[in-house]
């Protein structure tokens, strides 16, 4: 059946939250428009369930049914989503999403809950090189969340507080779990929350800038993933990059956190057309 409008859904299954977008595409697939988005924290619930709910959420807002969706594309830990049609690897999706949000970017930093990734892309969003953090959560989004919790500060306030810092406390390579002691220690030494947070932002930024250097990033860099919402982190990463004389400018977009989902939805449309064509050829 041919709808005059093509709808696809992209679901980015993160370790922390699930991001779902519904997109509408024009006939030749060159224009894609975001209709609705949903972000659901997993919070110890079953991932699969959260994904389903998130999917239903966006559909109901658009008053669509699953049958109206041409392609459900997952990215991230999409294995859990059994109603997907196809899966794209996260860098493939994030890079596409980043280009969609800002066609000028040539590098992407994806700051997620567990891993940090940096990759260089071309104008078609093809991933040229990439670097990822290792199997240690130190310096990850989760790390930051833990610290915020130990400090008793809501995640939303972290950015503003960090920017108030005047003399950031140096931290590096501390365990995401044992950080609690270090943080309590800093508090008891009379270091302010904003200096602690800024110190942590700087240390996270240093790691990610290291990755970016590894992919020889230059020019416009898009921050995707949840960390893009953290203005303190964004400021810190720019600061570090500048101090190391890197010629990069960091971009964020209010939809940065949805970049993976958006990219997946766009690739979904692309594959859908490819598949439809080859079906036509077969007939």
């Amino acid at each position, binding site marked *: 059946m041919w709808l005059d409008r093509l709808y696809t859904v992209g679901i980015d299954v993160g370790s922390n939250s699930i991001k779902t977008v519904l997109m509408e595409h024009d006939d030749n697939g060159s224009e894609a428009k975001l209709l609705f988005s949903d972000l659901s924290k997993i919070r110890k619930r079953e991932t699969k369930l959260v994904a389903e709910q998130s999917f239903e959420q966006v559909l109901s807002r658009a008053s669509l049914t699953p049958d109206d969706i041409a392609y459900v594309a997952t990215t991230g830990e999409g294995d859990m989503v059994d109603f997907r049609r196809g899966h794209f*690897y996260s860098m493939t999706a994030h890079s596409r999403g980043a280009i969609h949000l800002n066609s000028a970017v040539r590098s992407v930093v994806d700051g997620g809950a567990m891993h940090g990734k940096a990759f260089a892309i071309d104008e*078609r969003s093809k991933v040229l090189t990439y670097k990822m953090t290792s199997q240690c959560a130190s310096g990850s989004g989760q790390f930051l969340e833990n610290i915020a919790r130990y400090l008793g500060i809501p995640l939303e306030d972290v950015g503003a507080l960090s920017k108030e810092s005047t003399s950031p406390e140096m931290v590096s390579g501390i365990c995401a779990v044992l950080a609690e002691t270090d943080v309590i220690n800093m508090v008891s030494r009379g270091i302010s929350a904003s200096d602690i947070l800024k110190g942590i932002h700087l240390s996270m930024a240093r790691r990610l800038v290291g990755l970016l250097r590894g992919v020889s990033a230059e020019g416009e860099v898009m921050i995707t993933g949840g960390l893009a919402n953290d203005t303190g982190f964004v400021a810190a990463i720019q600061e570090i990059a500048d101090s190391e004389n890197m010629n990069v400018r960091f971009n964020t977009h209010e939809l940065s956190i949805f970049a993976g989902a958006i990219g997946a939805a766009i690739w979904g449309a692309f594959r859908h057309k490819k598949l439809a064509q080859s079906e036509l050829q077969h007939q």
Partner: protein
Amino acid sequence: MTVQEILRQCEDLYNDIDFAYVRDWKTRHGAGAIGYMPVYVPRELIRAAGMLPVGIMGAGDLLEIIKGDAYFQSYICHIPRSTIEMGVSNRLDCLDGMLFPAICDVIRNLSGMWKLLFPGKYAKYVDFPQNFDAELGGTFYRHELRGLLADFARISGREISNDDINEAIVLYNENRRVIRELYALRVERPHLVPTYEMYLILRASNILDVAEHTALMRDYLTATLREERPVRDNIRIVLTGAFCEQPPLGLIRALENSGCNIVDDDWMLGARYMPDDIPVTADAIGALTDAYLTGTVATASKYEEDGNKGAYLISQVTRSGADGVIFAAPSFCDPALLERPMQQEALKREKIPYTSFKYSEDTGQYQVIREQTGTFADAIKLWGDA
């Protein structure tokens, strides 16, 4: 035999870290067995002494390391730990000796550790010449081989004649030939020889009696041609860097599932170190020496006199029609990892796409690796310009 049956046999061999096959073989033949570490040892000599060569490639993720860690710091690769763990838990008792080929400092030092840990056992460091002149390196290597031969004669209690060696050479030539066929088939029709299966079958060469292994591969060739298998939309990959410590099976599967068909690799390199037949002559030691000096493929542990780094890898890519290269190296493996930037430079010049990751034989989480190879495959597939 069906593919499934063959695979089950290989899986059993793979999973058997108690080496029941070796024990059984020894009883059946009333002869000894000599273990060796990767990459290569002249198995022909062991065979010529009537003994069973047994390739030891660590214990993968099959063994919990309880004591092995006592011998190695965290920044040393994994294979020597699990090897020692097998040793100190008496699993390698069935071996009458161990050979440690000169491929890196870790294996080199392991030879001394073995001497200390198992004082009664034969443990030998096999030095390979890095000088490939017949008069220089050749003379030295001949001597090494003669030394080995004398040792094996002592261990097996029998004289080893030139004919004995030639007989073994013939058996291994046969084995090499079938391996070549298998690789050729995979290049031609990769879906018939999935990576996982190819790996297991080759891996069996570590343990199985050479004639049995040759027969097994033949069976597989026949069986797989009869199989109906879906052709998957995978990219073609040459995998390199994994000549010593092996990735766990789960990781090999994950590679395949992330959209990569491996069409050439350096797994079990020892069995393919000399791709061509070794001639049968009146000077068998000389033939083995020549084969080593002139007929071995490139690997990180071997000095390249002409400095044509990457040429061999590029020829692998060309021959197999691969879309790209994956460098998969064990963490903390100096030879493989130091080789990598040079190889990558060479590929860059040829505009061959590549990606790389590190693993350890007991890596349990493949997510990050799958993410990387998947993105790599995506990039080749979606833009198709490779």
